[in-house]
């Protein structure tokens, strides 16, 4: 059970880290939106 919990935590961590990297550091071409204005109203990201 503990091992399973550890594996899930690591997976969640990697997903979170990946999200932050693609959002703020580098977005791979296949993830880029057609009209990339960032999120939020008017692309405000907030």
């Amino acid at each position, binding site marked *: 059970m503990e091992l399973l919990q550890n594996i899930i935590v690591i997976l969640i961590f990697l997903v979170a880290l990946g999200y932050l990297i693609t959002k703020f550091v580098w977005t791979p071409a296949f993830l880029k939106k057609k009209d990339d204005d960032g999120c939020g*109203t008017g692309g405000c990201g907030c």
Partner: protein
Amino acid sequence: MAKQINVALIGNPNTGKTSVFNHLTGLNQQVGNYPGITVEKKEGICKLDRGVKAHILDLPGTYSLNASSLDENVVIELLLNKNDKDYPDVAVVISDVENLKRNLLLFTQIKDLGIPTILAINMADRMERKAISLDIPKMEERLKTRIALISSRKNTGIDVLKELITEYRSINTEPCINASIIAPAYFDRLRKAFPKQDLYKLWLVITQDVNFGKLERNEMKTISSFKTESDSNLKRLQQKETIVRYKYINEVLKETQTIDVANAKDLRTRLDRILTHKVWGYVIFFAILLLIFQVIYDWSQYPMDAIDTAFASMSEWVQTNLPEGKLTDLLAEGIIAGLGGIVIFIPQIAFLFLFISVLEESGYMSRVVFLMDRVMRRFGLSGKSVVPLISGTACAIPAVMATRNIESWKERLITILVTPFTTCSARLPVYLIIISLVIPDEKFLFFNLQALTLMLMYLIGFGAAIGSAWILNKILKIKSKSFFVVEMPNYKMPLLKNVGINVLEKTKSFVVDAGKIILAISIVLWVLASFGPNEKFNQAEDIVTTQLEAEGGINTFPDAEAYQAEIDKLVASQKLEHSYIGYMGKAIEPIVEPLGYDWKIGIALITSFAAREVFVGTLATIYSVGDAEEETIKNRMAGEVNPVLGTPRFNFASGISLLLFYAFAMQCMSTLAIVKRETNTWKWPMIQLVAMTAIAYVAALAAFQILK
């Protein structure tokens, strides 16, 4: 297959284009009762009769086809370029029944381009109160078009408008004015050079300094030979064109419009006299602001307390009922604690947007723009800079984009550079939590001290913006023309639907978009705080027990429970200090220590560079790691102690220092990206980042060193 036509909605600012667009398309674009809401093209689909589908484009508001700002260029570039995929089959010019004379200038210009043009006269519901009557058949005959009398507020006349759009092919495309009467000799030469072209269209291509990149190169070469006229002569001809058009419009309105001034029940003039008064105008404005902040605090207190307690209980429930392990810890200490740090601020943010929307919708915001123009001029800004500065209270990104309607490049650049000083909604969570920790919840006169402090923070932000503008105005050596035209709309009872949509959209955007970032950062932080690189982390329990045994062990405690509690506390502290994040924080501690912060706050400063609101979530996560008792965020922060001085970590000196740091620092990556986009260079965002961070550091340092 259904036929699709392109329909362009065009009109002066604040004529209700966006409302008409929403009615036609069923979409919910934000509307406001002040100019400059639409700065980019918005599009939607409207299903018409006979299987016709209309692709509706809501274009930025423009006073004429003589472009003087970026948003006006968008309109002209589209109307002069037949190759554009959005080139309209039919144009709908939205006009305000109370400002027909000025609105018709744009209508006649568009009609003269040979595009089938419908005139939609909006706000028809106000005609009776204003004692205005129109002879529509006569007006249709004189303007050679079809007219729809509509009210976007009452949702009347929209069906007629849809019908006219369907029948657009039957609309007369004859021009209102014969362009050659502007300058017969000049236009004669044009006609000879381009016998098959529309003269008025050519005239606009020659006189407008906009991007016609998609026009054929050969055509442009020949056209450029007609630019040999001096600029001043072209300007003189443009003025002449405007005079000719107004002369024509006056004649049309004389025959078709009657206004019985004696019967008008007009409160507007009387209200304007007070609200834009050179003394009372400012007094009323600041009184309204103060009232808003007071109410935000009073109304939000109970829902905020309820949310905070609910998240603490949720955390406790997870910890108690789920099987022990890292995933349970992550849920209780990372995810729930981090999310609590954002959800708690929903009530205050919703109330703030509620009041801003009511002010916008009522028409008062335009009076503020007019009022502030007098002040702004002295600081190198224009009255139009007030719109971005006020929009900046929500978010700097749309605010920076809203600078597009400022004609002067210098004023626009200065506004872009200073707008991030305005207190945006992302700063609000930081201010609210710090103020609640370091400012007493007491009354001063009739006002709550915490509410007064919050208002002061908004004034500091605004003061920093106009102070920096004054300096930039002295430093920047950019020459550009400047003038100020603003629409003064009528006062209106705010529409509940519009206000509701605005509050919902803004709050949703804040919670959902910021929430994703905060959740991700909370998870990463929790992992970094829950694992360490060496024995000092992994053997924390042994180290602490050995240390306590050396000091006398259990005998120095009243009972075994107290002894175990002390062990738990010291183990949590030892682990956090020697976790990955502990080492990272310690590395930057020397930089933030002079400001009164410890390494934990230092980590929050770094993570909140992505977005300011991450600050509270970060601290909530860091403080909850290893904490056996599930506390509210505020209590956790209040319980933090400076180990050297033995005083609370968040005291008056460090609290004020933090408030000032966040008031001035450029803690927003997205704003930097949008400034780069708007200025087309990294130079300005980098200057902005360095200058704002330096100001923030110095102000926070000075505050802490003086107050400690």
